[in-house]
């Protein structure tokens, strides 16, 4: 028979192991964040948020240069993608969860998983064929469509599991008072699952916000703000993940620093998204 002391020691030991593995999980993230901040913080100044990039000679000659067009472009493309992906993704999720016997569902489930596992560059290619070629130009819109392909399967999946977590008794209560099925989903199940829905959507959003590959041949990139405000949607537009890459492979050290700064902005953007998700899941309605 083991003594109480032995049990305690063993318990402490296991706890220590868990803490250690948590630290190991967090360490890469902390190192990445620290590294990005150390390298990029120096390039974060007023110009960075107010000027356009222009040519490399701007940076070499110390003239003002920045990424205002990139930051705005990222917001426009990402929110456009969300606007496209949200209704469709929610619909697919509702279908999977609320109409489990529908004969389309097995196909839908397989297709959704395939889309989720597909390399992001292929989604960009699809948007290139569907939108860029017929339009005859690269555009923020095609970038939004490409990113919506990234968001779609995630939203569908998280919607399904959020709705599935709501007990059937809630639906039965609605049906018992004579509500039609769509009304039950819309007015009782979805409000009950709202935290899960919002979280899932924001996770999909943050995931897509970091993707560069689908944007290479859709939103394409731009060194300036478009000359016309619709240009953000109908013309080529810059985005943070893609600009970060092209700054990083450039031969100019000033551009490398701007690349690190762009990484900080992207990190903060993604972290803010997750913070928003946390905020929504905590709030009591």
């Amino acid at each position, binding site marked *: 028979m083991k003594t109480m002391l032995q049990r305690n020691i063993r318990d402490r030991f296991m706890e220590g192991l868990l803490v250690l593995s948590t630290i190991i999980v967090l360490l890469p993230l902390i190192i990445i964040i620290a590294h990005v901040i150390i390298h990029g913080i120096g390039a974060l100044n007023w110009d960075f948020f107010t000027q*356009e990039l*222009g*040519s*490399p*000679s*701007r940076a070499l000659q110390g003239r003002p240069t920045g990424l*205002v067009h990139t930051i*705005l472009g990222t*917001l*426009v493309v990402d*929110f*456009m993608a*969300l*606007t496209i992906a*949200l209704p469709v993704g929610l619909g697919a999720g509702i279908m999977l969860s609320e109409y489990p016997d529908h004969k389309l569902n097995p196909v839908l489930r397989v297709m959704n998983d395939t889309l989720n596992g597909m390399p992001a560059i292929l989604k960009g290619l699809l948007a290139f064929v569907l939108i*860029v*070629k017929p339009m*005859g*130009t*690269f555009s923020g819109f095609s970038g939004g469509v490409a990113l919506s392909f990234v968001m779609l399967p995630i939203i569908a999946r998280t919607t399904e599991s959020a709705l599935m977590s709501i007990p059937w008794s809630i639906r039965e209560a609605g049906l018992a008072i004579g509500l039609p099925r769509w009304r039950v989903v819309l007015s009782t199940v*979805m*409000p009950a699952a*709202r935290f899960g*829905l*919002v979280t899932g*959507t924001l996770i999909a959003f943050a995931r897509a916000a970091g993707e560069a590959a689908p944007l290479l041949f859709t939103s*394409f*990139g*731009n*060194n*300036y*703000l*478009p*000359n*016309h*405000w*619709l*240009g*953000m949607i109908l*013309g*080529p537009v810059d985005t943070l993940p893609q600009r970060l890459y*092209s700054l990083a*492979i450039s*031969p100019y050290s000033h551009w490398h620093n701007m690349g690190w700064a762009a990484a900080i902005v992207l990190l903060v953007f993604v972290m803010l998204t997750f913070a928003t998700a946390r905020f*929504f899941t905590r709030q009591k309605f």
Partner: protein
Amino acid sequence: MYTNRIITTAIFMAFLSISCGNGDNGNGGSLPGSGGGSSAENRIDLLGAGATFPAPLITAMADEYRDLTNNRVTLNYQSIGSGGGIRQFMEQTVMFGMSEAFLSDEVMNNIQQSTGGRAFNMPITLADVVPTYNIPGIGEGVVFDGELLVEIYMGDVTRWNDPKIARLNPDLDLPGLPITVVHRSDGSGTTNVWTSFLSRVSERWRNRVGYATSVNWPVGIGGNGNEGVAGAVQNTPGAIGYNSFTYALLNDMSYGSVVNASGNVIEPSFEATSEAANIDLPEDTRVLFTNTPAEYGYPIAGFAWMLIYENLDANNAISNRREAEELIRFLIWSITDAQEMSESLGFARLPETALERNFAMIRQLKWNGELLGASLLEDHPLAASL
């Protein structure tokens, strides 16, 4: 859920309005440009993409042209490589492509068939490639000739004190250091120019290696990009590599002089590069002039071409006559006035022969059959004199 959706929509709308507001602020209050008012409807976005090498020049031109037109015309140039430039040009997703290799006959024929007009290759600037090296105690100015570079890159000449090197450099005391050959590992227009020179001077190289944007190197180590080659050369005593001239200048690398076809030792310079192209050019300028017959021309140089459709209306990326007109205006400016910017950015100027050929091609540019290029060139002072 509804709250979330409303907030999302609100944020989206807010950013949209900020972005358009900002665009207006950036351009608001600007005076009318040379071609008329600069109200929102008059503003034009031009789009080009392709070769990485001329990107610093083209984007600097874009900056300058934007100021010049009071923000009326914005040129967006993305460097995606020569191959990408040709590809997107053929896909008609860009108004012009940019390439360090001219379009092949096959591509030219395809375009002729699909658009009913030619594709023009218009020289915009020149690419020059210099041998760079790291020999302790020896600075700039080691002299090479084509045959020697071939033997080094074939692995036949392996030490810096080889008599073949000493013969060309009688005044230098070269060490018995082994030679480390460095080349590009990625596909590159620089490699195309370099290997085309080696192919021109040596039948052996032409048959065994040939020229392309990437080749099967007999010997040597690879470096990714100009910076990769530069890094390998600078960190390896005894190394030899090749870099674009502007890159060697910007990074204080030692580079050599090269003996040209006329037997003159040519030190790399912008003038010598321009001179290399001052030869009898074919009308479509699709020519490689490495090992140039020009007496004082630098032998390892080539054009960077702007690719453009003869029938501008056939290009899906150009949606109206105004865009075509502004594109031609920019093109004319870039090969004339804008060439002034070349040297300070590390590029050689276009020689007069190339300018002449470009003008002839611009005169044939059409929009729905209308000779748009010719009418825009009519009152250009330089075009009249050539």
